[in-house]
């Protein structure tokens, strides 16, 4: 007998494509957030699949902190050029210049939190009623309780205690004027699923994800790559190590890991053996136990 069953990757892919199409059908002016990291690259790939042979019926938006790895920006620009899809870039620097965002000071300043200001300004300015993000529920425990369709009030805030129930594949994107939604099509994917899918689909990634030599500093157990935005403390120094990035965010807060994995197969082996979570290297999450929950309530995706 013929066996009608999908593999886990095909089922996750189908679920994500369903959500992407639902967004295009239910919202007037959606947008897809794009950071240049692997999760947003996968989202972009899924969106192309969902609307093939048509173009993606919404633009991408990158909130650029100015503290990105140069490799990320190069990869982003090449991807957009090759596919002909449209990208909007919003600069955190513009929010700082206009006085709506304030640069942190001290030894470990980060623009991570400022992204929320620029993101909300960008959404308001473009009158976007839905922003899709590549967040996954396995990343962090506040995200484990996030819906696929996450309602936000007119200030972009998340109210975790008052979320709409989500059943079967019936999604409720109804809202009042001025309110909007965050939608997370790959909610049910794990880090391993993402890597297996990258291998299966032969998806190209920025070189940062693969093993390379880089000057880093060890700050409280987190390895940070050398850049102009990190000020060394007296007892710190740059040392060359063989590393790769497990996640890609700002250079100021993305911890890198020692690794010799030079291709996706080797990364999968490494992920299978590792005992530290993906965001374990993110300084922005280490600020407190509810750091992510608090940022999300304010409108961070």
């Amino acid at each position, binding site marked *: 007998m013929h066996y009608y069953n999908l*593999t886990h990757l095909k089922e996750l892919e189908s679920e994500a494509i369903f959500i992407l199409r639902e967004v295009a059908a239910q919202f007037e002016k959606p947008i897809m957030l794009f950071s240049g990291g692997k999760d947003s690259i996968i989202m972009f790939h899924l969106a192309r*699949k969902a609307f093939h042979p048509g173009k993606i019926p919404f633009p991408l938006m990158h909130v650029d902190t100015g503290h990105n790895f140069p490799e990320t920006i190069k990869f982003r620009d090449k991807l957009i050029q090759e596919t002909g899809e449209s990208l909007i870039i919003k600069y955190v620097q513009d929010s700082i210049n206009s006085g709506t965002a304030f640069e942190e000071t001290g030894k470990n300043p980060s623009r991570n939190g400022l992204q929320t200001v620029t993101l909300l300004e960008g959404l308001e300015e473009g009158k976007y009623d839905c922003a899709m993000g590549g967040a996954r529920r396995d990343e962090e425990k506040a995200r484990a*309780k996030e819906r696929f369709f996450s309602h936000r009030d007119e200030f972009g805030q998340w109210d975790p205690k008052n979320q709409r129930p989500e059943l079967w594949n019936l999604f409720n994107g109804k809202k009042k004027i001025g309110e909007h939604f965050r939608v997370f099509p790959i909610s049910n994917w794990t880090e391993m699923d993402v890597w297996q899918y990258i291998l299966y689909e032969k998806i190209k990634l920025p070189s940062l994800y693969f093993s390379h030599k880089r000057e880093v500093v060890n700050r409280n157990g987190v390895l940070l790559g050398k850049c102009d935005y990190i000020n060394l403390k007296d007892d710190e120094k740059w040392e060359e190590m063989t590393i790769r990035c497990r996640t890609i965010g700002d250079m100021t807060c993305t911890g890198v890991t020692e690794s010799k994995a030079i291709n996706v197969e080797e990364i999968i082996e490494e992920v299978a053996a590792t005992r530290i979570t993906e965001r374990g290297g993110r300084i922005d999450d280490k600020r407190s136990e509810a750091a992510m929950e608090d940022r999300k309530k304010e409108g961070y995706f």
Partner: protein
Amino acid sequence: MNNDNKGYLNMELLRFTTAGSVDDGKSTLIGRLLYDSKAIFEDQMELLEETSKQKGEEGINLALLTDGLRSEREQGITIDVAYRYFATPKRKFIIADTPGHIQYTRNMVTGASTANLALLLIDARHGVIEQTKRHAFIASLLQIPHIAVCINKMDLTDYSKEAFDKIKSDFEAFASKLEIKDVHFIPISALNGDNVVNRSENMNWYEGSTLMHLLENIHIGSDHNHVDCRFPVQFVIRPQSSKYPDYRGYAGRIEGGVFKPGDEVTILPSGFKSKIKSIDTFDGEAKEAFSPMSVCMRLTDDIDISRGDMIVRENNKPTIGQDIEVMICWMNEKKIIPNAKYTIRHTSKSARCIIKEVKYKIDINTLHRMEDKEIGLNDIGRISIRTTKPLFFDSYTRNRNTGSIILVDEATNETTAAGMII
């Protein structure tokens, strides 16, 4: 390791739901499944140890792992559905972990709506209690295809076969009143690991499989309906580009049956007939499509089709109608208002409906029909509704995807009820 890299190409996905209260060992069991399958990481463990110590608890409190929100941690209870993930070389698992108390019925229903399997926990010392019955009822109402009844804390009853047999027959007696198809009973000790991942050496009288073996091997290929062809159109793809000037494809997810190019189909509500020209995906044309695949279909004829329409087979149509009988679970603080209007969502269709009558409310502990017809938060009852336009539906027992609806409050836009068509 090389084999592991290839193995993922044959992995299936199993979604299961758990419900339980603070003391029945649910968190310990989930913690064990996650820990034994290496889904808990060192930095999460460190954080748990630290938090447990701060709260003055002995050992590590695995419940802290599933309580994601600050208010949940402060109150020491799980309020919302938490999703957890783990994988073995055979399958990937998604756990919808829900609180078991009666006031969280809506969360249990939410977690159950997409589950292949329900994991029910019974404390071997206490046997079948009200909460067990409630969970079994919800599993039956939501038509979860498989149920695993884990009789936990066997270590506290000296691993007694008699205790296990008694609970098994009590459960079966109660379940005979429900529509439950496939039940498995497993004696376990989540704390010591008996029959969770490894076979217990303390219960040689038990010849069934361990919980993990059941989760890895239970047949889920028949959980979707592969008989009745149902393709609700979700989105119309019209590139209007120089490469595809006249392309018109109907995108959506197959919600039942198997479709192939060349099949004769009927479009609802128009009743027009056509043939499938091709089933398109980004990776090329597909030879067939079945649930739950997301595809894009082209037809041989130019017909006006839009979101909310449904492509079916002429000789196997769903019910087409505006008067619908539904079992609902109410999910909102605001009680049901008879004769009021709500927005209804069903497959890719949206319409309005009026609550014509509340037939009865169910006491979910005794399964008795109640005199009281006021349906409020967490209540389950039977209602009849009339919709502004015809829906194309099947009974929920026949097809969970074309037999389910949600009601949306028109003033607040909140999802106010989940319904299963009778």
